């Protein structure tokens, strides 16, 4: 019974939502948007579970002096400070309904001067990792890898003004060989064709996966084995 009820709900909701795509009339027309709203409401409440789990896992580590407990301390402190600053609007309009982002409030300051630079730093790491991954991956090991390598060269240079200057001497009749034009061609022809092929495969995979879930053939995500 515990497993049958979710399967029945999945089947009914899945089928009705598919039908509602084709029927704009009430009550079907707005079912999709209503279910989206229901999901968001559930997700908001589920955050309490997430926050609770975070405090429980890291609280345990601190209590038991787990080998990396100082990191847990930083996590819990960060969580509590941001939550209290936001909830009680410290330094801003008093009361629970005040503006969270009021200039000068503690939450706003933490957001601007701690959170923003930390996030930007993490994203900036990508540039370094792209460089090291490119160094390792772009090797002309075989014919396919060589084509990939050449394409990477053209794109990398084509995205810079240096690439424009490098081939700007070419006569007008050979302008298609200019690096920026080659880069645009690679992006809009072979890249786009490949992306679309992958997207078509993904769309079909999604259909099959969704049908397996709606029909109850796939039920591992419910914590149950398929029969």
């Amino acid at each position: 019974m515990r497993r049958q009820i979710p399967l029945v709900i999945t089947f009914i909701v899945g089928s009705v939502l598919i039908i509602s795509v084709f029927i704009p009339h009430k009550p079907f027309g707005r079912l999709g948007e209503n279910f989206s709203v229901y999901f968001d409401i559930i997700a908001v409440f589920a955050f309490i579970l997430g926050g609770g789990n975070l405090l429980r896992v890291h609280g345990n580590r601190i209590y038991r002096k787990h080998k990396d407990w100082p990191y847990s301390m930083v996590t819990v402190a960060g969580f509590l400070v941001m939550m209290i600053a936001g909830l009680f609007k410290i330094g801003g309009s008093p009361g629970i309904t005040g503006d969270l982002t009021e200039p000068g409030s503690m939450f706003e300051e933490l957001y601007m001067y701690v959170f923003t630079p930390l996030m930007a730093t993490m994203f900036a790491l990508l540039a370094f990792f792209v460089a090291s991954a490119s160094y390792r991956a772009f090797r002309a090991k075989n014919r396919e890898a060589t084509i990939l390598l050449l394409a990477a060269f053209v794109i990398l240079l084509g995205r810079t003004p240096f690439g424009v200057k490098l081939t700007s001497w070419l006569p007008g009749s050979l302008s298609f060989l200019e690096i920026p034009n080659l880069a645009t061609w690679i992006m809009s022809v072979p890249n786009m064709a490949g992306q679309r092929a992958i997207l078509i495969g993904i769309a079909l995979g999604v259909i099959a996966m969704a049908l397996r879930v709606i029909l109850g053939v796939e039920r591992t995500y419910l914590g149950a084995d398929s029969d």
Partner: protein
Amino acid sequence: MSFFETIANIDRRVIFLFIGFAVIIPVLLSFSCTEEASPIVQAIFDKIESLPEGSKVLMSFDYGPSTVPEIQPMIDALLRHCCEKNLRIYMMALWGTGHNLISESMVDIIEHEFPHKVYGVDYVNLGYKAGNQGLINVILTDMKKMYTTDAVGTEIDAVPMMVDIRNLKSFDVILSLGGGFPGVKEWVLFGGDPGNVPVAGGATAVSAPLLYPYYPRQLLGLLGGIKGAAEYESALIKGYPKFKTHSHPGIDMMGPQTVAHIVIVIFIVIGNITFFVARRKEGDERGERGILK
């Protein structure tokens, strides 16, 4: 260990160091490059340019602090262009982090550079609403179902420019800035396509390739990374030379990006040279073993 072996097994931190210098030095020397708008960027500029005064532009801030350096220059340039054209700007966010970024952009660009613009008449901040693509689904048919007030709590019907807004179809163009989830793709699939409203996007360079398949039919144009921002800034300066004196971080950042790309290319070349040397050496050794047999 030979020289080539040392290079082949180079510590990744050495590469990181070079990339660091490749970015820092041009920034310190203020090295920048000029840009020409490519067709995919020019298409957005032309669309904004073609809109008559008072047209409604929905701008969605779908990004967070992590991508501010790449996305913010696009926002700044687009806001300047819309303000210059006297378009009505509706700002909203699908990302929680977008809320603060709207406030900052409002202060930095609209209030500072266009002080005659009136809040509620020329621009409005609708703030952040949870729901991702579900939110787009809802506002496709009913905007005021989700937005009962603006970001500062004013009743939505008390905001003059919201009076004739019913749903997404009420807008002349949707600009989604941020290539993550939810972002440009969700606006195309759940807003632009079903509502038949033109959507233009701005995305980080990493996520831009994912959006190319939607151009030009479902996506009227795309600003991809710093280069996209720099190209839009160039188009704006070309169309409105007075903006030359304003900040143009996109153009400024193209210098460091150019140098970093060149350094990566050099590393790839070095990597391939060491690879070929090692392979030849391996071949020779195999050959020698063959003779001994």
